[in-house]
């Protein structure tokens, strides 16, 4: 899966999980500040990413992901290494 495909799929997951408008989900958007992901929503989001991409996100590494752009790069690297 190339990075563009990851980006598209990931945005879909974010829109559904966080119930935000698709236009808000841009690379620079921060999950907590801009998309309103509180601690519980963050846990749900990580679970949704793992299921959607069939990957495993290490807890500490996942916590470092702050923006949608970070998430795209991080998940693409995990998908590529499968």
């Amino acid at each position, binding site marked *: 899966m190339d990075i563009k495909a990851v980006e598209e799929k990931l945005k879909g*997951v974010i829109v559904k*999980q966080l119930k935000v408008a698709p236009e808000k989900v841009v690379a620079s958007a921060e999950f907590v500040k801009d998309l309103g992901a509180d601690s*519980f929503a963050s*846990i749900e989001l*990580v679970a*949704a990413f*793992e*299921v*959607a991409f069939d990957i495993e996100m290490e*807890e500490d590494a996942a916590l470092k992901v702050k923006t949608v752009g970070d998430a795209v790069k991080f998940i693409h690297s995990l998908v590529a290494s499968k």
Partner: protein
Amino acid sequence: MQICVFEDKGFELLYPLTYMRPTFELKCGHTLLYEKIVRAFPGMKFQYIVRDWLEARWKEKFGADKVNNLAAIQSDDTLFINGRLLYMGLKLEANGSEEVGMAGEDVVYARIKKSEIGKYGHNVFDLVAALKNLPKKDISCTMIKYPWNLVQKNPDAIRDDFAQINKPGVIEGDFHPQACIVGDKKNVYIAKGAKIHPFVCLDVTDGPIIIDEDVIAYPFTRIEGPNAVGKKTQLFGTNLRTGSAIGPVCRVGGEVEDSIMHAYSNKYHDGFLGHAYLCEWVNLGAMTTNSDLKNDYSNVCLYVNGELFDTCDGKVGCFIGDHTKTSIGTLLNTGTIVGMMSNVVGNGGVAPKYIPSFSWMINDKYFKAQKGMETAKYAMGRRKCTMTVEEEKLINYVKAMTKEEVKAYVKKTTVV
């Protein structure tokens, strides 16, 4: 002559209670299963056989020379005793002819001469598997097969422990003049350092009460025998109903009936715990309550290794693995299994009947546990305990072992 307490394959049916301990370290009554065996053979040398992935942790705990040590076992005539045996109401002879005592398919004990042990295997696990080949004798006894067996046998085990302690009516601790005993005082033993505050009631009408060293029972605690309160446990106005064995070092409030709590577990607040078994370092949030009886009075079924089992018992509560926590207001269904290092967050409804180890249950959804190890170390630190290197390795081993199960449960409730 020596005794060797061994684990057989039966540990798998006792998950999650046996993830962090061998079968013979399960608690029934005031004592652990192996402590009852040690007590029955005073002055005897002991060896232990545990499954391979518990070996390092139990060598650390019991001493390297005492665990899975084939050379030591081969050095003497040995009476092997199954760690799932509830050693109560029977007397095994250490000396005698070679034989294996069987209860159905279970090896209960086996006597082997030193010169013969080598024939039965080249490692301790082969040896355990080969014990069945000795001349057989059928015996009647209680083997712990499923988690609920421990709770079922707990009242009788407390009575037996009380008899074995043999201090009827002895009060070595501080019993306030405004505390009272209902029934025959001979059914009470209060060890040194224990403090029984005013307005505490010990009702021994239906069975004995053991209060161990340095227990504090604060005002308005009511304890009904049979009951055993372990060392340094604190009771905060607890309604401690019949058949419970608590502690050591637990903090308990609310209503507790026919339940077993291992060391360092807390149920500080109000809420009901009945016919339940809590491993070490469990914390139940305020108003956590479990059901132990179905409204139609039918048999309780629960999950054992992924399969739903009929317990053939109408009174069965919950079984919770080590380091698991529940939030305020958690409601646990009749016959619920919660694995180790999990987190159950109440949302007003009843939690599912099975919650895997290393998972979080929030709003009816399963998630991978987060920061479990850090939380466990912090909780232990608060009680001036430190997680050992081998304990941490064991936790990580079980985490890896149960990883796929958690993944499958997360998948079930995650919609993408």
